[in-house]
Every structure is written in structure tokens, then in C-alpha cells.
């Protein structure tokens, strides 16, 4: 996803001279082309994310379209105060880009994990929250993010994620993207777990269960029409995300559902637990521990589905 981001932002900067890229001392080689083509519009802001985030607000207040880019926890939860006050309160068009979200940097430890970012950020007024599922979704979502009049958070994985799409999809902010249709259960995937949801759907098919899979790339604002349709049409709706079950897409959907009273479908929220994991381990290994592999997700859904019969 990050290579797709670098390519997209470079192309978009060629079309829009207001685009300014701020980096928190990462992605140096990644932005070589950007720096070469737009030397006055790239700033390595050092290991100083509060200043970077405040400066982004200042740039936007002067009519530019800045992006901040660094490892997710450092560009989001570390500087939640600057995001809240400088960016969201001022309601300026800054795009906050977090790379290595969820457990992408599993082996680097909890300091580099981000399984709380969506929960914390989606509380903020004015902020749009976008979670592309794969490299193909990055470009249209970046294009959309840079066209919005207010602030946006874009939650990227790292690189080499399995492709969900074979070509760039038509994407509209606030509208979930149905990737596979089905009749029995509906899986809402968030970001880098959409691919897992898709694999889980294939496994469910071998058990005779037909699953719809949606890339819920926009966590805020929620696609309420799609939620309503899904909760009325299916018996079971599951959310699959590499984010804590507290505060993420599952929580957002649960809040929506609770406010609307009983609907046909029950909700199964699948995400990371309310815990830090401090042992060494790869992203794949951690997903296995947390039941976030296609097998484990399919198993959970199967079990829940059978209780409904």
C-alpha cells in the first residue's frame, strides 16, 4: 500500500500544486521521485510529529493541501491533541496518512502497533476516516481524500498486502464496496483484513454458506444505507478488522445498530483483543494468536451462524 500511496501522491501533486507532503523522517527513498519533481513541496519534519501536525494545519489555513506521513501511532495517537485542535477544530483539509497500521509492524512491538487509532480518531468532529483494503484502493481513496473540504485520516498497511482488486475500483467516500455478493452472511472487512474476509468467505462456501464481502473503506461517515440493507437482508453480519474490538469498525457498527433497535441480523465483531502483545512475532503469527486468519474467522462465523438456525 505504501508504494501505491507514494505513486498516487506524486501523480496528484503534478495535477494540484497545492499538495505539500510532510514526512516524519521515514519513507525517504519512497519519496525520491516526489522530492525530485517537487522539491519545494516536500519537507522531512524530523522526529517531531507534534510540530509536523501543527504545521500541516498552518499550511492548510493558508490554502494548501498538506499531507502528513509517518508510522501510524506516531502520526495519530501520539499527536491526538494537535489533530484534535489544530486540524479537526479548525476543520482544515489536512490528510493524515498512517503507514504500517494495525499489526503491520508486529515484530517491532506494541510501540509500533496501532489497534486503537480508529477508535480514538473517529470520535473527532469533522474527520473522515478511510481504510483502503489494498494497493488498488489507495489511489482512488487518496484522490477522494485530497478533494474533500475537511480533514481526513488514511490508514495504510505497509507493502505486499494480498490484492483484493485486480484493477482500481470505482470508489466513493462513505459508500461501502461490495466485492463479493452472497445470500447467507455479510462480512464487513476493514482495511488490510478485507483480504482475510474474502478468504474466509471462500472457506464458508465450502460449508454451503454464501457470504457477501464488503470493503468498508470509509469508517466515518458510515454507509448507513448499506448497513441497514445488510442488517435487514442477512441473519448474520460480521465485522473483521485488524483493530481492537473496542472502538473500531465493529464498535461503530454496534453503536449504529444499538441506536436503531433490533434488526434481523446479529452482529459478530472480530478484531484484536483489549491487550498489548509484547512477545516477538510476525504479523501472521499475531493474527493466528488473535483468531484473525481466514480459517479462524470462517470458524467463528460458522459457529455463530449455526446458533441462529
Amino acid at each position, binding site marked *: 500500500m505504501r508504494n501505491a500511496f507514494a505513486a498516487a501522491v506524486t501523480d496528484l501533486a503534478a495535477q494540484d500544486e497545492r499538495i*505539500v507532503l510532510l514526512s516524519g523522517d521515514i519513507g525517504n527513498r519512497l519519496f525520491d521521485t516526489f522530492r525530485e519533481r517537487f522539491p*519545494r*513541496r516536500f*519537507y522531512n*519534519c*524530523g522526529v*517531531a510529529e*507534534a*510540530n*509536523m*501536525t*501543527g*504545521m*500541516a*494545519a*498552518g*499550511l*492548510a*489555513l*493558508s*490554502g*494548501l493541501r*498538506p499531507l502528513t506521513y509517518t508510522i501510524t501511532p506516531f502520526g495519530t495517537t501520539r499527536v491526538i*491533541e*494537535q489533530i484534535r*485542535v*489544530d486540524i479537526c*477544530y*479548525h*476543520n482544515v483539509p489536512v490528510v493524515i496518512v498512517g503507514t504500517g497500521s494495525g499489526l503491520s509492524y508486529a515484530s517491532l512491538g506494541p510501540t509500533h502497533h496501532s489497534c486503537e487509532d480508529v477508535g480514538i480518531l473517529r470520535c473527532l468532529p469533522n474527520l473522515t476516516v478511510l481504510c483502503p483494503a489494498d494497493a488498488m484502493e489507495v489511489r482512488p481513496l487518496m484522490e477522494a481524500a485530497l478533494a474533500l473540504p475537511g480533514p481526513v485520516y488514511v490508514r495504510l498497511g505497509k507493502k505486499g498486502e494480498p490484492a483484493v482488486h485486480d484493477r482500481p475500483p470505482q470508489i466513493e467516500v462513505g459508500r461501502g464496496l461490495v466485492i463479493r455478493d452472497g445470500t447467507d452472511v455479510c462480512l464487513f472487512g476493514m482495511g488490510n483484513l478485507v483480504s482475510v474476509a474474502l478468504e474466509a468467505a471462500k472457506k464458508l462456501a465450502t460449508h454451503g454458506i454464501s457470504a457477501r464481502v464488503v470493503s468498508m473503506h470509509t469508517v466515518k461517515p458510515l454507509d448507513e444505507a448499506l448497513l441497514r440493507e445488510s442488517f435487514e437482508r442477512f441473519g448474520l453480519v460480521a465485522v473483521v478488522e485488524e483493530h481492537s474490538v473496542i472502538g473500531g469498525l465493529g464498535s461503530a457498527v454496534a453503536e449504529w445498530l444499538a441506536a436503531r433497535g433490533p434488526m434481523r441480523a446479529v452482529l459478530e465483531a472480530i478484531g484484536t483483543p483489549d491487550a498489548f502483545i509484547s512477545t516477538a512475532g510476525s504479523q501472521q503469527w499475531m493474527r493466528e494468536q488473535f483468531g484473525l486468519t481466514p480459517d479462524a474467522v470462517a470458524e467463528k462465523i460458522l459457529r455463530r451462524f449455526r446458533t441462529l438456525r
Partner: protein
Amino acid sequence: MIQTADLAAISRRIRARLVEMSHVAETPHLGSSLSCVDMLVAAYWGFVRIDPRQPLAPDRDRFILSKGHAATALYAILAERGFFDPALLGTYNEDGAALPEHPGLQCVPGVEAATGSLGHGLPIALGMALAARIQGRPARCLVLMSDGECEEGSVWEAALFAPAQKLDTVTVMIDYNKWQATGRSDEIMALAPLAEKWRAFGWEAVEVDGHDLDAVLAALQRRPDGTGRPRAIVCHTVKGKGVSFMEDDNNWHYRIPTRDEVEKARVELQQT
């Protein structure tokens, strides 16, 4: 060119207004507001290039009151300078009115950024200065901070960034009144020597008497020295300045003046 004596008269008029506003609206931070009045007067009558009739002109200088708790001082200055009808000051802090206790988002023309949480003004100003450079505009950025505010880490992140980019269109003024909310700013944190800290971070730093209008004006009007260093003006001030019974008494960080005290202050400020 406006004379210093005229500016001193403006300062006194503004101070009397702040005392009145604090009393009527029952809001604190009067001492903090009084200490930076002369700095604001020097800035708005002797440095900042803004036309009140075109408050959003793209080339304008940007002024940010980073110590947002001195909001009354900013409001009174902007009204006096013609950005809005001074009658609006009478609605300060009323339910649903435009002027809150910290400068609100676009609450009145001339307020460039909403502040209140400390340590935000300088990074925002650096973004504005970068924007001016990218856009090829002559805008300069001036930030007024408090001494206690210099305890925020974000201030020093910004202090490291600006000289690296040679942002010499940026000037910081520090209202060094030696007090913060609950004690002496040099005791709670190792703030002193403050000007030396800015110098060590790559800024051209000077120290002036923050109530000497000529000195503040001279410091503001000095041109960048060509080295690309941004400028810090450490203004030695007295909290509660201008009202004898408030001067250097930190009770006036929170205390609200009685009607009687308002009248006494008016006499001292020659506003009767």
C-alpha cells in the same frame, strides 16, 4: 508615524477595558492579559501588515496569540484597530456570543487561529510561513507566547524546525512575566536562561523590557540579519502590569476584580 505617547495612551485604554471585561464577564486570566498589552500594541501598530478592511488578504502578515488565555487582550486590540465594532466586546463570554474565553475559530475578523491549549501557535505559524514561501507571498508570521507555554515540548520541536528551514519570516515574542498559573515559571521548570535557549536552538534572540514600547518596536522592526535565523524577542514583563495592586501578584491569574477594583484601576489608568 504614530508617536509612542499615543501608543501608551492606547495601552492604558485597552488595559482599562480588560479589567472591565474581566469584571463583567467574571472571567480569569486578567494578570496574563495585562502583561502582554504593550507587546500587542507594538505588534499591531508598528509591525503587523494587515488591513482591517481586508482581513483575509493572502499577502497579509499573520499574528497568532498562542497564549490564548489572553484572549481579551487580543479582542480589545482588534476592536481598537478597527477589525470589528468595539460594541461586540460588551458581549464577551455571553451565552451563544462570538467571543469565548479563548479565541474561537474565526470568531471575529483578525483571529488567525483558535488557541487556548498551549504550544500550538508556533507550529501553526511555521506552516503558514512555509506556505508563504511555497506560494511566493511576502507574509511574515508573528507569534506571541507565554513563558509557561515554553514548557510545552511542541514549542521546542518547532524551535528546532524553523532554523533548519531558514524561516526568517517568523518572529516569536515571549511574554516573560515570570509567573505561570500556580507559581514562578523559573522554579517550576528550568526555564531560565530563556533567551540563551532560543539562541542555542538557532534563533536570533534579543531581550527587551516588554513594557518599553520603543524597545519592543525596535526589536520587532529590526530586519532579519541575512543568516536565515528566525527571531525570538524575549520580553521581560510584569504580570498584571498597569494596575498597581495587580502587578506581580499571581492571585490575578484567577481573581476577578470587584466593581470597586475596576474603578480604582480606571483611575490609575487615567480613564476617568
